């Protein structure tokens, strides 16, 4: 059927059918979003959606997604089935009626969903256009020293946030690669790094996690240093000689750099023995 070919060519989704590698697909938020897009392209009314035509274009689009190795997730397939079902119902000669004997449009439910979704899309766009705090507008909200808000300006960091910070460090240091001829003779032990981290915390109140990851060691470029330091920090936290904190922003959301601090236990010197016990 020629209509299918034409509709694809008229579709700005595929700018040039002879340049398959430059195909760019707009990102859709889901099957409803894709349907709204097709309806808009065809300049038809949502309330009178031509199921056969739109359904065909919908399937073409799914095919396109597959050709591009994009995941066609289940939700898109469910919608394809729904469209096929509605189409078959519309082809039936029998008129569908409800209990009151009124004629029922098999498309009614889909149309209601499309209209509802479209409405929320509009609201979402309106919300997205509002001036946003800390992007467009900035609030004068001076913290009063000693106020509860000031005292509770940090929160203890969980393991996952720490792993995430570790990943960031690794990402930032992607250049780290052992030279092929280099033979690693010097092992960096976790215990060694534990002692070094505690040594650093001895001299100051708190230390930045990401800076610490690469500090206090002459072999800065080694990946095993990063690994050892990370494991050392985890071990120190487990022994509860340090705690790991992240600052809260003015609205109470953890934000910004992660830092370490000695606990009371970590301050009395007994940590040396506890680390020694591990050896």
């Amino acid at each position, binding site marked *: 059927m020629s209509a299918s070919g034409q509709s694809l060519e008229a579709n700005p989704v595929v700018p040039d059918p002879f340049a398959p590698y430059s195909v760019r697909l707009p990102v859709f938020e889901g099957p*409803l979003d894709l349907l709204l897009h097709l309806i808009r392209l065809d300049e038809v009314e949502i309330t009178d959606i031509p199921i056969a035509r739109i359904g065909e274009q919908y399937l073409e689009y799914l095919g396109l997604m597959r050709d591009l190795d994009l995941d066609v997730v289940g939700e898109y397939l469910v919608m394809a089935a729904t469209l096929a079902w509605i189409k078959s119902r519309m082809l039936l000669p029998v008129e569908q009626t409800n209990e009151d004997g009124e004629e029922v449009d098999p498309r009614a439910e889909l149309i209601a969903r499309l209209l509802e979704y479209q409405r929320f899309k*509009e*609201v979402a766009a309106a919300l997205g256009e509002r001036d946003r*705090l800390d992007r467009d507008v900035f609030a004068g909200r001076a913290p009063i020293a000693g106020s509860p808000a000031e005292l509770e300006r940090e929160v203890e960091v969980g393991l996952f946030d720490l792993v995430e910070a570790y990943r960031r460090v690794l990402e930032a240091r992607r250049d780290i690669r052992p030279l092929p001829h280099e033979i690693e003779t010097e092992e960096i032990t976790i215990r060694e790094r534990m002692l070094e981290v505690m040594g650093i915390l001895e001299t100051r109140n708190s230390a930045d996690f990401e800076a610490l990851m690469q500090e206090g060691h002459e072999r800065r470029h080694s990946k095993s240093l990063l690994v050892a330091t990370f494991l050392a920090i985890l071990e120190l936290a487990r022994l509860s000689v340090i705690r790991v904190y992240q600052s809260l922003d003015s609205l109470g959301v953890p934000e910004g750099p992660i830092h370490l601090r000695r606990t009371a236990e970590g301050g009395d010197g007994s940590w040396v023995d506890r680390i020694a016990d591990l050896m």
Partner: protein
Amino acid sequence: MKETERRSIAEALILASPEPIPVARLAKLLPRCTPAKARALVDELNADYVAQQRSFEIQEVAGGYQVRTHPEFASYLQQLQRTRPLRLSNAALETLAIVAYRQPVTRAEVEHVRGVDAGPVMRNLLERKLVKIAGHRDVPGRPMLYATTKRFLELLGLASLEALPTLRDLEELTPADAPPASQGSGQNDSGEAPAQLSLQDVDIAGKPN
């Protein structure tokens, strides 16, 4: 106490409050003041700011007053930030909109409107404290209910949930904002799809049959 003095105290309180200060609290902290009087003081302050072409104004957000800069200074102020401004994807905005209007709402209800899995987006919104868990619905499975937070109102500069554009407002806006219908215009349109929901369509949607 002179009127100007009281106004200055109100200004200082609003400026130095760590979070938006509710009008009732403002009135309580000000000597011999009522909420209505406090409101009037804020209006006077704002009128002053306009007259003096100041870079900020007092806005009502999340149930309180807060001093906020005008958006035209954003590019300068962003340089002060230690962290990047919060980005919200379309999926996040759509989900927020549905939660905001339908709250308390289950994840399944959000998924029904958007037609896609809401799990990752909802988790993200929970992490950013824009959405919170507001209990369970008393049906089999006891699904969690979600609602928007105070931070959501602060982020988008909304005085309260009532300040959200009503769906009806949108219906009224749509025909006015839409370009005049280009029915039967020439073939060489710029390729833009002008198809917009008309007022009638929305009305039909509101009351199906």
